[in-house]
């Protein structure tokens, strides 16, 4: 009584769409698109996740309160990833001024010989 009962057929349609997109994303990996391979794979993954949230997880029949929670979860995820990326990928944009490498504890230690290349 207290929740919408979804027609069985709709679940099977979503299932078929998800399987088709799995086949598509696997197939696209064998086509040379350069950097766009990653973009295509992520766009397809986002479409699949959207279908799961909309229909399997009943977004379409949810209250606004529940939708606010879903959107804020995604918003915080976006903040986490985008702010971390802005830090990491902008570090080499400006050189470290002379003398700033030194701290009150002395110079920063040299990286170990087996360190990953940067």
């Amino acid at each position: 009584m207290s929740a919408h009962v979804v027609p069985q057929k709709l679940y099977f349609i979503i299932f078929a769409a998800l399987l088709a997109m799995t086949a598509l994303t696997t197939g696209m990996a064998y086509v040379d698109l350069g950097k766009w391979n990653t973009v295509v794979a992520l766009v397809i993954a986002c479409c699949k996740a959207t279908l799961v949230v909309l229909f399997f997880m009943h977004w379409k029949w949810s209250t606004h309160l529940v939708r606010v929670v879903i959107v804020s979860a995604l918003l915080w995820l976006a903040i986490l990833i985008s702010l971390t990326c802005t830090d990491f990928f902008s570090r080499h944009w400006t050189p470290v001024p002379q003398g700033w490498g030194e701290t009150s504890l002395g110079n920063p230690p040299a990286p170990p010989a087996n360190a990953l290349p940067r």
Partner: protein
Amino acid sequence: MSDHAASALAHQFEDLDQQHEAASFGMWIFLATEVMFFGGLFAGYTIYRNLYQPGFAAGSHMLNVTIGAINTAVLIGSSLTMALAVRAAQTGKRNALVTFLILTILLGLAFILIKLTLEWRHDYVEGLAPGLNFTFAGAHAKSVELFFFFYFTMTGVHAAHMVVGVGILSYLLVQAWRGKYGPDRFNMVEGTGLYWHFVDIVWIFLFPLLYLIGGRY
């Protein structure tokens, strides 16, 4: 309101609608914390994949795309049976609910078994398990090792969530067998469904990110 409905309603709620909304709301709050939990791994993955692109591509190419795609299909299938189980609980069809819960458990176990026997074991034998047996010494060996750290951590944490899910589903199965669920009492089945679909979504992103880096052409 029937006696059954009255007993399905916890005393702190006005009616079943409010109880249902509270249950969904609580489950989604938990899933929001889970998004943050996996989000940390995805953020770390994004950084290191961009810093060590060739090594990550080389590591990704050592994984078996076919097995990964089959496992994706298995997991999507388990999401379908889970959604149908929730529907069976909502419509009060006990036998259908029991059947779909068993199917979901079996598909979940199939996913874990495929992962364990055909992938992790194989990777370990091939010398691709950092910390246990990492003997790969080709080009970019250090960043390939980093890729496999992410691979084992992300798929491992994901599989741990599936093991927990199978445990909860087994409890639901016993309760469903006893006829505890029905149109007035299905919030636990629906909440477990939300969790199960969330774990499915995590895999939907793990599959392309781990298996399809840098293309396969």
